[in-house]
């Protein structure tokens, strides 16, 4: 196998730029692992590191600044067999910080080469997230105020399973890259180098100084034992292959005849924990059991365990054009919070609307017909009132029948919950509340 360097577009950097060392070391690593170009995708970021993909005869993806790791993740998930190599500068590291952390946490088998030359070379030498505070850069004094971050330590803290940092000038750079590519999981090689076009015009940085600086940092030597774990694509496959198919669509064949013709809307007003949303769905399914068309909306607080809960359902023997509910045929007024939420609706009601409510529940002044149920006497708990009220509705021959209701319960619930709910519905059905 030959070198994968693109002879038609050979590496072309500023004279003295350390990036060229990285290009050649990467090529040597590919050669040693015996990877063919069509087994590799180079995903390059923006800036001088973004030129890397053009120098190789491999698949290539050159995207947006800081986002290389996101494209790499998508490619790897779609084709786990590909060797995915990402090149990114210290600029991309900063703007794509969240993606770096996520890549470390996720542990996809991707190799990230950081071409770390301590400044934004392409845009004129501004400071990056790795620029020393005492460096002279084109961002004025601003870098004096900030502490550069150590990529490897950050990555280890975030869960990276392989990190190494080294100078671009070492003779065995290719071996570091090789080890990173061979690692099954997310691997980082933080390659420190010199940007002669910008950085070393005003700062002194030589291969020797780089070595000295690196020596002062805590050692990182490839595999991070505490972070070794399953590679993400393999783990994803392992979990998902055990998943059972999920049927999202429940098809209901009509079995019953609805007690009323026309279009009717129902409001169920209560509070969190009263199973208001479930009651709304039960009502809709009861409608479907008689071939009624239905729409259903719910409204509840972001604190899902506290506050109002409102269901609004429309049931009609004709296709529903407009989904707004209009004047309701029935209101199940079960709790102050839901009632307050829809307070305005009560004012305009007339006797065509039936309000079913508890003996102990306050409702706003209204011209609607009110039917009060002594839930306490019937030993109906707060979270049973919604379903109990649906039975009361059927006793009034309003919109749905008792058979439609229980058939809906059977459709929605598993056997255990169905039995429990049936016990409740029968209690109301057999009572003499009407």
């Amino acid at each position: 196998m030959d070198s994968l360097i693109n002879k038609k577009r050979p590496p072309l950097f500023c004279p003295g730029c350390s990036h060229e060392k990285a290009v050649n070391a990467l090529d040597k690593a590919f050669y040693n692992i015996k990877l063919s170009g069509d087994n590799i995708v180079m995903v390059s970021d923006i800036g001088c590191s973004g030129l890397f993909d053009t120098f190789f005869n491999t698949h290539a993806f050159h995207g947006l600044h800081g986002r290389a790791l996101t494209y790499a993740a998508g490619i790897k998930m779609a084709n786990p067999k590909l060797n995915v190599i990402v090149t990114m500068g210290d600029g991309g590291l900063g703007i794509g910080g969240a993606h770096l952390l996520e890549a470390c946490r996720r542990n996809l088998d991707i190799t990230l080469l950081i071409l770390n030359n301590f400044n934004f070379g392409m845009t004129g030498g501004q400071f990056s997230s790795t620029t020393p505070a005492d460096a002279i850069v084109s961002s004025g004094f601003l870098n004096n105020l900030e502490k550069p971050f150590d990529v490897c330590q950050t990555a280890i803290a975030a869960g990276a399973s392989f990190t190494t940092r080294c100078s671009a000038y070492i003779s065995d750079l290719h071996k570091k890259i090789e080890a990173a590519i061979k690692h099954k999981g997310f691997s980082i090689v933080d390659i420190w180098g010199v940007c002669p076009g910008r950085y070393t015009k005003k700062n002194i940085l030589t291969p020797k100084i780089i070595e000295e600086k690196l020596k002062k940092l805590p050692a990182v030597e490839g595999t991070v034992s505490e972070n070794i774990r399953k590679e993400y694509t393999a783990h994803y496959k392992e979990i998902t292959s055990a998943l059972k198919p999920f049927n999202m669509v429940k098809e209901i064949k009509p079995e019953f005849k609805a007690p009323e013709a026309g279009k009717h809307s129902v409001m169920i007003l209560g509070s969190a924990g009263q199973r208001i949303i479930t009651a709304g769905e039960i009502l809709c399914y009861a409608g479907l059991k008689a071939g009624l068309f239905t729409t259903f909306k719910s409204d509840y607080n972001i604190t899902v365990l506290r506050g109002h809960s409102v269901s609004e359902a429309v049931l009609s023997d004709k296709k529903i054009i407009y989904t707004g509910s209009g004047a309701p045929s029935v209101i199940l007024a079960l709790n102050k919070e839901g009632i307050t939420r829809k307070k305005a609706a009560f004012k305009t009601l007339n006797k065509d609307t039936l309000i079913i409510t508890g003996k102990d529940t306050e409702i706003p002044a209204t011209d609607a017909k009110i039917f009060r149920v002594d839930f306490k006497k019937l030993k109906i708990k707060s979270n049973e009132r919604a379903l109990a009220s649906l039975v009361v509705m059927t006793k009034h021959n309003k919109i749905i029948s008792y058979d439609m209701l229980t058939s809906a319960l059977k459709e929605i619930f598993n056997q255990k919950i169905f039995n429990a709910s049936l016990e409740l519905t029968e209690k109301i059905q057999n009572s003499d509340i009407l």
Partner: protein
Amino acid sequence: MALSLLDGNETVALGAAAAGCKFFAGYPITPATSIFNAMLNLLPQKGGVCMQGEDEIASIGYCLGASMAGVKAMTATSGPGISLYSENISFAIGSEIPIVIVDVQRLGPSTGSATRGADGDIQFLRWGSSSGLPIIVLAPVDAADCYILTKQAFNLAEQFRCPVFIASNKEIALTKESIDLNLLEKPEIIERKLFSGKPDEEFMPFAVKKSADVPEFLPIGFKGRLARQTSSTHGAKGYITIDASEIEKNQNRLQHKIEACVDAFTYFEEVNTDAADTLIICYGITARAVKAAVNILKKDNISASALILKTLWPAPEKLIKQKTEKFNKIVVIEMNKGQYVKEIERILCDKKIKFFGQMNGVLIEPEQISEVIKNG
């Protein structure tokens, strides 16, 4: 008859799965999250991938990577997320990456109201990324449309290699309704055109034979041939170019490949009333109030017709001109402060256009629309 109770987000997901979507990534945001939930139930069980991104930028980034690796990809968000998608949207436009993007619109501006509906992103979807080159936007009216148009969106994304948006709305997305999936029109699936060159022919990722063509595709990772993708201004081979004539040719092509074909994907619905002299133009959830308003007006012996647009961008100019020809009065109703009406005014510059809009998180009621029509 067999009815199911499904909301627009669920039918978007079902439509996507039926279209062959194999990759979904999204970041949680109300009212779009339940699309993510549904895709998580639909894709991984069948060898597909569903991912939760660390942010919206990552989510669309994953999709673009996956799409270039050859799989059909979709993401879903709401207005705040579309803002964060913007740079990647223009990447997908310029670099011809097929992707379906669902925007479940909610009331803005900014964080706005997570659980209130609006159609406030209609111009934003068209113009909210750099370059101004065209994209495709389809607008569903109900859960059935969400299924059909999402399937169409995949077909268009694959065919034209561009971002295709579903401009949904909280009021469609989170309203469950009875729907008979068996009765829905099921568009045939269209796949990306793969490289058809001879074995000795070089694959050039952006090469086309004719000026309005879409390049043939090979996935990144293809065995035996190399594929390139780049966000930089590129020539046919996918390398940076500074050749102005080559650049211009390509920009024109990116415009024409979509705009020249809009007739082929102009989706719409009409409500025709005899002797009507008013035409109401609308789209999305508002179309349902318009339909109801037309019925209310009939009872008052007032005739109005309606044109419900389901392809919003590129604006179906031919259809709009043709369908409005015989009407003296044109009324545009939108769940915003006046967005698509600007496009209608541009297309029908010789007609007087009346506008009614509302953006307060509440559905426009049929009675409000019938009042607007009655008041001439």
